[in-house]
């Protein structure tokens, strides 16, 4: 790891000022950036510790929903009784991340802002498109874990488990930068590579995510997060799905279906949701939602298996959210 200067700001304004300098990166739980620095992928001159900032480590319940500080750990989210009951998809997503040791340290802000796991991107000796090179090696290379839905020219999948759940729950993020504070719907926070090749989201240099706001679900809302991975101990999603259903009796009144592991962003499928709205949740409806969710997929050479897998994951998540066995 290259030597760096370490900063511990006491205010968000100080943090933002430090982060606006070139060669500066932020660290909170450090579960992504430390590995990337040890591998020589990132070599910041300055590292700004966000954990020294006060007031960003709490989960607050308000009349309109939840306010989750960016420094709240994934374990805290997974174990929070209200989140487990009313925002189930989020609790299940947080619990599906990595290992208990990582969840005890990793933060929700870091989970949303972590960099992709693409093995070409992660190899410091490979100068890929995302790092300013002239080709995406995944296109002709080993793309078994890559995107089946992407406008190109890069085919990463977004690695976050919590992001699909939070998008499905309609969350917003609060971003603080040199020019002030702004609030962005989480689904607008993430960007496809045709919009933003080098990053995965709208954060500008010097900006930090300080808070995630999740609106209180309407009565009758149920949600779940389902993740399929090759191994159950510490693995990334091959495909995951967050499903939020607002039920009125037997009938689904509103739905949100967001997939992980299939696209460079948490992939929301309005067409899958549309299949479900206005009907009772049945195996047939859930199956149709699964098909609709990845109807637009254009797999690469080695990842066509993700299409039937995504269909199955969405179907099961829909049935699980609705409580249909």
């Amino acid at each position, binding site marked *: 790891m290259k030597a760096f200067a370490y900063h511990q700001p006491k205010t968000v304004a100080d943090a933002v000022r430090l982060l606006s300098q070139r060669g500066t990166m932020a660290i909170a739980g450090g579960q992504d950036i430390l590995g990337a620095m040890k591998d020589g992928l990132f070599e910041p001159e300055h590292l700004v510790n966000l954990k020294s900032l006060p007031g960003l480590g709490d989960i607050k319940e308000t009349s309109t929903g939840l306010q989750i500080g960016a420094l709240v750990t994934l374990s805290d989210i997974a174990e929070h009784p209200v989140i487990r009951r009313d925002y189930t998809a989020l609790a299940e997503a947080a619990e599906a991340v990595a290992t208990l040791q990582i969840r005890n340290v990793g933060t929700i802000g870091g989970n949303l802002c972590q960099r992709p796991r693409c093995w070409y991107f992660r190899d410091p000796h490979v100068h890929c498109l995302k790092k300013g090179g002239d080709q995406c090696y995944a296109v002709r290379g080993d793309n078994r874990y890559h995107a089946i839905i992407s406008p190109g020219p890069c085919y990463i999948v977004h690695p976050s488990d919590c992001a699909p759940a939070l998008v499905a729950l309609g969350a917003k993020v609060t971003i603080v930068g040199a020019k002030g504070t702004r609030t962005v719907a989480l689904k607008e926070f993430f960007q496809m590579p045709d919009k933003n090749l080098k990053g995965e989201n709208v954060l500008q240099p010097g900006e930090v995510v300080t808070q995630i706001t999740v609106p209180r679900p309407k009565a009758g809302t149920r949600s779940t997060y389902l993740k399929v991975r090759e*191994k159950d101990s510490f*693995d990334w999603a091959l495909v995951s799905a967050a499903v939020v259903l607002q039920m009125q009796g037997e009938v689904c009144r509103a739905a949100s279906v967001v997939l992980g592991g299939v696209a460079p962003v948490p992939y929301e499928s309005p067409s899958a949701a549309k299949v479900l709205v206005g009907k009772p949740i049945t195996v047939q409806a859930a199956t149709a939602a699964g098909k609709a969710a990845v109807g637009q997929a254009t797999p690469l050479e080695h990842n066509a298996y993700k299409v039937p897998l995504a269909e199955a994951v969405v179907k099961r998540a829909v049935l699980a959210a609705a409580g249909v066995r």
Partner: protein
Amino acid sequence: MPQQKTKRIKTTVTVNGETREVEIEVPDIEAAWGDPQNMRRLGKRIPRVEGADKVTGRAKYTYDIQLPGMLYGKILRSPYPHARIRSIDASQAEKLPGVKAVITDLTREVKYVGEEVAAVAAVSEQVARDALKLIKVEYEPLPFVVTPETAREPSAPRVHGGQNVSGGNPRERGDVDSAFRRSDVVVHEATYSVPARSHCCLEPHGLVCQWQGDKLIAWASTQGIFSVRDELAGALGIPASNVRVICEHMGGGFGSKFGARAEGVICARLAKVAGAPVKLMLEREEEQLATGYGPGVTAKVKIAATRDGQLIAWESESYGSGGVGGGSGIPLPYIYPVPNVRTRHYDVATNIGASAALRAPGHPQASFIMESAMDDLAHKLGMDPLEFRLKNDPNPVRQAEYRLGAERIGWHRRNRVAGQAPGVVKRGLGVASAVWGGGGGAGSRPTVRIDPDGSVEVRLGTQDLGTGTRTYVAAIVAEELGLDVRQVKALIGDTDYGYSGASGGSTTTASVAPAVKMAAMAARERLVAMVSQHLQVNPADIVLADGKVTARGSSEKSLTWKQACALLGKEGIEVQGEWNANLQGSGVAGCQFAEVEVDTETGKVRVVKIVAIQDCGLVLNRLAVESQIYGGVTQGLAMALFEQRLFDEQTGRMLNANLEEYKLPGSLDMPDIEAIVYDNPTGKVSGMGEPPVIPTAAAIGNAVFNAIGKRIHSLPITPAKVLEALGKV
């Protein structure tokens, strides 16, 4: 020197399913382990003597060695799969404060990513790392090939200048072509493959080297302290007697830690140049790139049996790859005797670091290929796969083990027709077998010492890979002297003790245990002679048990252990032992049964249960044998479902040179494992560290076939492959 008495004995041997009788010469010394029924310690479940030290962190591994003034070594490795080195300029690195030694004369051409180019020693790991970055290497990249499939193409870049494909000499017996043409046989043809798998030792390779004048002390994480000693001495041009190698505890080797290795010589050289001790432990990426792996292999096979299920013919053409090295051969056909055989094996060179022996080298690969073909053929014959094995496996131990295992797994619950399990998540059962030698050899020179204060120690320059060597060394002496295991101090892992061989091929126990037993017997004999004189009784009537020395039939003539030892005088007892062939046996047998669940919508395989049965002749420590079975099954499950080394043809680089995308199972992936130690009444000790890894993947693959009726022809069995086999992709 007096001529040692020898005798010739006849014994049957089985090599790759061929049984023959051979005559061998063994020393003729009366020695026997005795009746296991009468043993107080051996054969029981003995907790390992260093267990508490390991779990509390008191145990010092090579990684833990800290010496005053110690420097840290780091190796600069090639980022290219093939390149000529035009120049190396280390001047900036040498100027960096804290850098104490730089080596740049390692090679002029690199043939794989991770090959050693230069090395430094510095006051901290951080400074050493920074120094590596300051070494300017001008590479001239050359054409490369990193997949065996591409390397086999005529137009592929040449790894060594000549053909990439070598070998292929046919090995033949019987009349293969006629056998396949017979009208009463059923023939099956298919291609099966196993990818290359990394060792993933918990403790990486590496050592700490300290010079004292022209003498060198090296702490090494190794399977062979004496082989490291000899290789370091040779490479450094000093007498072997000037080198002392220490390995008190080590975190796994699995076949990859025999010699001094490149990093060993580099570490010793850096320490010499710097004039200070140097620690050089490899990082995980280096482990993946440059310390070996088990070769991958693809085999096109043709197998035939008569309609009533007698194996009759086998033909295979296999291609294996050990990167820039060879050693990719596998024993085919495996275990089950076939009268008519033709095999051809080819080594395919690639620009990847060399492979190394990996726990039962070649056998898990051969097992997956053979056992898959066996089940596919049984399916064609309409035969129960277990029946098919019972009919074709003459080994009496495995015959018994098959029956025991079938009962324990509930074989009757299998799908009579593969794939006919109901539901979305389908259950299936499978079976596969293991064979190994496990015999030992001469050479170990243990010393047993009894001091007049009653303390007992046994010293031997063997090493404990984590298999429990130290514990049985102590337990054998304790058994002989009627003491508790904890009353015997076992000192191992130091070339200052008597010679012992490297630990590989599951030879350690059958080599070490007989020698220790002989030393302990000699010590006992000396003690008994002394005590019987003192008690005025016949030596044959002396009993050593429960920490007492007693004359049989006369309870008043009894001494405590300490009282007895006090009779020894100042010099105590110090005796050596030598290996005795009568105490060791070879030819161990095992089999495993797997129960799996296959999710036909996600393609995910969950292993529910493994029943693993293994014999090793006379059991010294039942707990340790069970541990070896658990470890073997865990590695076998990893091979079945997760492990594969992946390389990128565009860059020549390994895609998963880590433990993130190189996938190993964790606790949530583990099944219920029933480890059954099969007590084979040979009365002789054999090794068994390797065989439990052999059949697991094959048994799992066969269970998946039984569940879904589709064969996954290549490992690992991933969701992608299952979905594809089910026609869903």
